[in-house]
């Protein structure tokens, strides 16, 4: 994933963070938790550009979407944040569903962090990976899975 460019979403780019939060419609599983996670990092999210950005690999053309990113005052990426909702808590969600951490996604997220850090190495700012997990029984197992090796920052909300 070397040579990363960020493809900003034009619609989101027009919207301030508060407007996005006001648009909270619990239409889909995970939406409300994602908005809570955005609110939790609101001070460090600089614009709508930082919500659901796509990172595109120049080599294969595949895109990787993350939930949001946070930046410092100079625009350097400080965190890549992935939110993991508990599906069993969504409206109509099956009680057996919980938080699912996919190892492939974790691996790709780590590659993305490495690529971002390569891109912004001159700034001296080192980006970190954060997983925000929706609080509940399932979050404990998910956290244990994430903490096995080279763990990201894990925040349970």
């Amino acid at each position: 994933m070397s040579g990363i460019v960020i493809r900003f979403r034009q619609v989101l780019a027009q919207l301030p963070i508060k407007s996005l939060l006001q648009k909270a419609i619990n239409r889909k599983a995970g939406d409300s938790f994602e908005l809570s996670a955005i609110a939790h990092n609101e001070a460090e999210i600089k614009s709508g550009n930082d919500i659901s950005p796509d990172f595109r690999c120049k080599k294969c053309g595949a895109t990787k979407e993350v939930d949001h990113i946070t930046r410092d005052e100079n625009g350097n990426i400080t965190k890549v944040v992935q939110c993991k909702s508990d599906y069993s808590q969504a409206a109509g969600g099956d009680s057996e569903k919980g938080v699912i951490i996919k190892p492939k996604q974790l691996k790709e997220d780590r590659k993305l962090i490495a690529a971002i850090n390569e891109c912004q190495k001159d700034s001296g700012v080192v980006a970190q990976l954060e997983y925000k997990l929706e609080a509940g029984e399932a979050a404990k197992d998910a956290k244990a899975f994430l903490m096995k090796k080279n763990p990201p920052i894990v925040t349970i909300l």
Partner: protein
Amino acid sequence: MSTDYYASFTPVPLTRQALQTPLEKLFSEMSAQLDADCYRLELKNGQFEYTDEEITCESLIDALIKTHNWGGVEINLVYERKLCSLIIANEIPDKTMVVFCVPESLFEKQWVNPLNRFNLLNLLVNFMKRLGASFCVLEPGWARRSRTSEDIEKWLRDVNQGIARDWELVIIQDLFISRKAVPNFAKTYFLETLPKPNMLSLSSIREREPFPSLSR
């Protein structure tokens, strides 16, 4: 996004290696590219969990052969430039389950636009036919086990009683559940009859036009 969508098919009486042809046709229809990484799943307390084991594979058949003794395998693929996956696992004796997973952004793209939704439905129905599956359930999140006919029947009962469920789409072969057995719950799901393969589609979103022939 934080949500992945899973399409679960009826567990079918096929070995994993026998899935090679239907899966290769599915990959071809989707113009999907196989990713080399495969992840091991094992059944624990009635649900599949990821283990720490992963291998790299050169092809689909390579993945199916190398992982034949695993409880389940997640094979990753790139579809529409998004990382998706296919879970193949054995929970019920002599039956194999297939689950297809896409991220929410891709699901939304395919669900909101009527043409894309039709193409998605076509893809699922054709794959059901090749698998010999009698149903397919598309839902956010995964119960980490096989969906069964009992799940479908419970869903029908729940929805009929006004109990909210998050399933977006259920495709049922009408030999499995007849149209008469499907209760009237038009407020939450829309019933369509798919013409050729004798299947019923129960969807959270209404089709604007009747389906053209889905057979190929």
